[in-house]
């Protein structure tokens, strides 16, 4: 059996190896990688929907048995691979076990970054735009519906919200250019500097908003509840929820996404560490910094402020639409209650903190791609950064152009959810069972300032891999309504978001053909509006908080009128219709092609550098 010599610096390593400027810079970059939109928008919604204060119990348990072990695995695997001059997961994993399969599993660590960055940079550009609109006073005097509509209009390239043509596209390009520029400045000169500015600023903005939110008083500035009411609602424990598997799966999912594990970006950052540099203390520090931002700041902003103005029932209803809806469709309206100056300040703070949270994460997604091109194909940093920018622009365009057709959600589901779980599951198995836990533990503890509890050794070997397999299997076969008692040998109805149901297009509704003559109502509701905007006709179907806008094309004509009550399946529009399912499948084919394309590049890189690699094995 071929074994790898430990900690050997090899001849083919680049002469001038990049490294982090300081430990603090590295920790802030790692924390910036972990802190993202989810800390402020996803966590509070998950907590509200899964038992309030009791949600934090499975959440903290999962942090210990899933989050920290994965952080330790990824940090140590990265530092190990870095000793051989590798900074991307295909080659880091192959160094850990010289079987070709691991190299192809490592492709997930580049694929996820590329695919997630494609839609994540788009979201990041929304926050840039909303900072501008908050400063410009765009939301001043708008009703809540108008603010919500503004977001829909912003995402529709056919509509110009403020006279800026193709505004969403313009901000997307601006955002990508900024990412590319920072990446081209290098690790310590670009990423580290950006993190040293971005992370402290987002914490300051977060503290400002949390203090403002918590100190709200009922009856002042239009608030109907105290800010404390929101905290009370969020933190009241419903212990009965602890017996519900859905809550545990939600907690595991939240921990997983919040720490940005399973992406390949942590391994990449850690691969620039020196052989004896501490990883355990740094990993725990970055992990806890993320928890501080999520649990303390993230839990104290949108829920207290929203409950202060809308009350508990309405906010519970709004959380059904997810955190994005609450953040972009609602918050600018609520800030307006604080007067024009404070509204502008709060808007800049809220969307500014989201922007910094976003950009420090997207830089972490860019670094493995840039490193891959540099290590394996000898590209210069500036060319590699530009290559990343162009690639993300090309892959991101479908999410910009076809956002409402579900392309954005498809990217998020397959690359931002499924791919991460698959990769993390395999890397934990590789680390514990193929690389070997003794060797792995030596990697984790070498150079550490703290004594890592031995308890983690057993968790790494047995608990984390098993838990990841369980979570993955559960997401494959998740039952309808998350009712796990439905499971039986005779089969059970699947949840629409389970992987199998997604593959089958379950729940796609009546518009299930790629092309059709009619567009049908997707749910029961009322045609609340038929309006003409920027040369187009828009039909709006609403039911409670559910809302659907359909742009009636030139060769289509309406079959309903304003005020009509319709049931799901009622034809609304006649003409040449291209349904959402077409765009969904095209997005899937595109993502699959990207994965295969990266795998081919990895294969050629391996062949190209095989002689050099074999010399070091």
């Amino acid at each position, binding site marked *: 059996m071929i074994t790898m010599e430990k900690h050997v610096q090899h001849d083919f390593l680049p002469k001038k190896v990049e490294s982090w400027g300081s430990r603090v810079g590295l920790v802030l970059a790692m924390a910036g990688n972990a802190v993202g939109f989810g800390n402020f928008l996803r966590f509070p919604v998950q907590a509200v929907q899964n038992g309030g*204060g009791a949600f934090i119990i499975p959440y903290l348990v999962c942090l210990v048995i899933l989050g920290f072990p994965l952080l330790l695995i990824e940090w140590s695997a990265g530092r190990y691979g870095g000793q051989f001059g590798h900074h991307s997961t295909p080659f880091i994993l192959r160094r850990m076990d010289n079987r070709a399969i691991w190299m192809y599993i490592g492709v997930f660590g580049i694929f996820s970054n590329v695919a997630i960055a494609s839609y994540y940079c788009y979201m990041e550009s929304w926050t840039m735009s909303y900072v501008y609109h908050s400063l410009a006073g765009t939301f001043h005097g708008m009703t809540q519906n108008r603010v919500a509509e503004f977001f829909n209009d912003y995402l529709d390239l056919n509509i110009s919200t403020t006279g800026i043509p193709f505004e969403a596209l313009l901000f997307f390009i601006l955002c990508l250019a900024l990412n590319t520029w920072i990446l081209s400045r290098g690790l310590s000169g670009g990423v580290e500097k950006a993190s040293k500015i971005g992370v402290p600023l987002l914490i300051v903005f977060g503290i400002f908003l949390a203090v403002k939110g918590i100190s709200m008083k009922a009856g002042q500035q239009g608030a109907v509840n105290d800010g404390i009411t929101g905290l009370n609602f969020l933190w009241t424990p419903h212990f009965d929820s602890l017996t519900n598997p859905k809550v545990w799966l939600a907690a595991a999912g939240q921990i997983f996404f919040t720490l940005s594990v399973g992406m390949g970006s942590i391994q990449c950052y850690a691969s620039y560490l020196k052989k004896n540099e501490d990883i355990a203390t740094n990993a725990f520090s970055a992990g806890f910094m993320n928890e501080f931002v999520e649990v*303390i700041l993230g839990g104290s902003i949108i829920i207290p402020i929203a409950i202060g103005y809308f009350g508990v029932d309405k906010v519970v209803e709004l959380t059904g639409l997810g955190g994005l809806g609450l953040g972009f469709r609602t918050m600018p309206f609520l800030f307006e209650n604080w007067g024009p100056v404070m509204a502008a300040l709060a808007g800049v703070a809220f969307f500014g903190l989201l922007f910094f949270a976003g950009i420090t994460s997207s830089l972490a997604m860019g670094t493995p791609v840039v490193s891959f091109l540099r290590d394996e194909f000898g590209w210069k940093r500036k060319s590699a950064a530009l290559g990343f920018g162009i690639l993300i622009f090309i892959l991101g365009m479908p999410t910009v152009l076809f956002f409402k057709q579900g392309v954005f959600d498809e990217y998020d589901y397959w690359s931002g959810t499924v791919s991460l779980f698959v990769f993390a599951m395999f890397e934990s198995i590789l680390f514990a069972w193929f690389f070997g836990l003794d060797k792995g533990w030596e990697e984790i503890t070498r*150079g550490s300032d703290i004594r890592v509890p031995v308890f983690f050794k057993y968790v790494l070997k047995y608990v984390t891999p098993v838990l990841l397999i369980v979570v993955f299997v559960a997401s494959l076969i998740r039952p309808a309504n998350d009712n796990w008692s439905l499971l039986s040998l005779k089969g059970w109805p699947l949840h629409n978001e389970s992987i199998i149901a997604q593959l089958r297009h379950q729940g796609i509704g009546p518009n299930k053909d790629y092309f059709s003559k009619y567009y049908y109502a997707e749910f029961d509701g009322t045609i609340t509006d038929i309006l003409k905007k920027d040369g187009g006709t828009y039909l709006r179907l609403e039911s409670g908080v559910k809302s659907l806008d359909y742009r009636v094309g030139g060769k289509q004509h309406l079959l309903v009128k304003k005020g009509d009550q319709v049931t799901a399946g009622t034809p609304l529009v006649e003409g040449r219709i291209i349904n959402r399912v077409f765009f969904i499948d095209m997005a899937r084919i595109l993502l699959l092609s990207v994965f295969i394309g990266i795998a081919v590049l990895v294969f050629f890189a391996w062949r190209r550098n095989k002689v050099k690699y074999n010399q070091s094995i």
Partner: protein
Amino acid sequence: MNTSALIMMLTVWLLVFGFTAYFFIRVLVGDHREKKNGLKENTNNY
């Protein structure tokens, strides 16, 4: 704010804030030491 919510919130905040501060101070101290003396020579602490 009801008592159980308050206890739950303060306990979690204290835990999270305490660990965040503790580990970050360790990082700062380590950073300072490494800048002054370079990396430790040891390959294993225990």
